[in-house]
């Protein structure tokens, strides 16, 4: 009898709390988005699964000695996982389009308006009872507007670890929603003629340019914003491994096995922060709302910047590629291409949109550095 009672007391049924049940449903929701909707599955699948695991009663996944606590403290709290993923993303990134058309960096800069406007918005939300965002919290939330997962996770871990779960969910969800969020904004802010603009073919970029570029970016970051060098530095390391052509086996591993291993663990670890206390509150709603605003403002700013540049430049820019400045590589570039094709079936913007797209990655890493330097 004693044993039976002990067995009953060790079941989940005898130990569930409502919050845990709800958070498991949230985890299932993330799995649904990942599997059925193909929303950023590489991160949302492990993250959703991590959310389920961490909320299992008795099992203690995130308590001292639990598997997820090792993953979180060892890989995320230390910043190691996001940095390794950033290195891998750097090794996957081709800056050719950006170097061929450097003006597109301005589009990547403009789209960061989404970040800083959200910062403002997060503070404004403090007017709502139950929401109490410090400037650190606000900064961590604002980075969602950067549309870059590892950057958001890295910054959130440093500035507001208790919000990490909600921020990561918001960041990846909206990145997955880019094909839904962006097109209406892009169409609303452009005329049909603007969307029809065809862009000149990009000049070829030499190998030496591609090798020196990441070093130049790193150098400038060192000069002006060392706080951004963890992110930018690892990104540039990956890119240098790629472009140098002398360490192909390292570059390949960074792009494949290493980033895959890290992605599984990062997802699980981020998911482990989706506990009821941390997620089930009005602040999470605020974060989700701010994320949508951030993406919209970023998209709009990019498009408007492109229109502005057309006023001052002879070489026409299709304003649609401005929307790719939010990063969300390579989805946003594909969206620009698709909306462009709707207006003009001969208008292939993909390569052109890759410029602002990767500029957006740099832009948000720089923005993260600024927030770290001034608020962190």
């Amino acid at each position: 009898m004693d044993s039976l009672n002990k067995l009953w007391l060790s079941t989940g049924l005898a130990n569930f709390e409502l919050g845990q049940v709800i958070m498991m449903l949230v985890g299932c929701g993330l799995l649904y988005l990942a599997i059925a909707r193909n929303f950023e599955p590489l991160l949302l699948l492990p993250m959703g699964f991590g959310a389920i695991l961490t909320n299992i009663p008795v099992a203690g996944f995130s308590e001292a000695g639990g598997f997820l606590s090792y993953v979180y403290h060892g890989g995320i709290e230390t910043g190691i996982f996001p940095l390794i993923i950033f290195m891998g993303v750097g090794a996957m990134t081709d800056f050719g389009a950006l170097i061929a058309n450097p003006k597109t960096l301005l589009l990547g800069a403009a789209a960061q308006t989404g970040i800083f406007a959200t910062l403002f918005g997060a503070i404004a939300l403090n007017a709502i009872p139950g929401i109490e965002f410090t400037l650190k919290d606000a900064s961590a939330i604002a980075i969602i507007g950067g549309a870059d997962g590892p950057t958001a996770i890295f910054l959130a871990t440093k500035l507001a670890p208790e919000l990490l779960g909600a921020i990561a969910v918001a960041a990846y969800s909206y990145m997955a929603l880019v094909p839904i969020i962006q097109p209406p904004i892009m169409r609303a802010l452009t005329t049909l003629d603007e969307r029809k603009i065809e862009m000149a073919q990009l000049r070829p970029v030499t190998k030496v340019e591609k090798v020196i570029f990441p070093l130049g970016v790193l150098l400038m970051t060192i000069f002006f914003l060392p706080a951004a060098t963890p992110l930018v530095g690892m990104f540039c390391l990956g890119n240098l491994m790629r472009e140098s052509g002398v360490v192909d086996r390292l570059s390949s591993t960074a792009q494949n096995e290493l980033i895959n291993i890290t992605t599984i663990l990062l997802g699980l670890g981020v998911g482990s922060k989706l506990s009821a206390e941390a997620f089930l509150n009005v602040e999470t709603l605020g974060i989700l709302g701010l994320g949508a605003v951030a993406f919209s403002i970023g998209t709009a700013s990019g498009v408007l910047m492109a229109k502005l540049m057309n006023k001052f430049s002879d070489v026409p820019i299709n304003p649609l590629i401005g929307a790719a400045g939010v990063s969300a590589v390579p989805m946003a570039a594909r969206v620009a291409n698709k909306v462009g094709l709707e207006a003009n079936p001969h208008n292939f913007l993909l390569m052109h949109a890759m410029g602002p797209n990767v500029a957006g990655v740099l832009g948000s890493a720089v923005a993260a550095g600024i927030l770290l330097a001034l608020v962190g």
Partner: protein
Amino acid sequence: MNNMEQQFLEAGTLMLAGMVFVFTFLTLLIIFINTVLAKLAVKFPDPVPSIRKRSNKKNNKAVSGDISPAIVAAISGAVTRYRQQHSQQPSSSQEAKK
């Protein structure tokens, strides 16, 4: 509300400083590309590969001869289908791999 006002002020400053900084930074990067990289592109152009040589190289890799990969693929496809049709033994080689 005094506190919130101050926070707004801080957020505003942060926004201003941030946007200025981001634009300055990326503008400097444009200058870097237009000056340093542009010069480097002129000074160290990519070696122009002789087209003949290149295509030979590719061929060599694929068949160690002068047949293009496309052809080899074609032949291989044909042969594969031929074998699928004619060979009776169940192909247990796939399992063996596992």
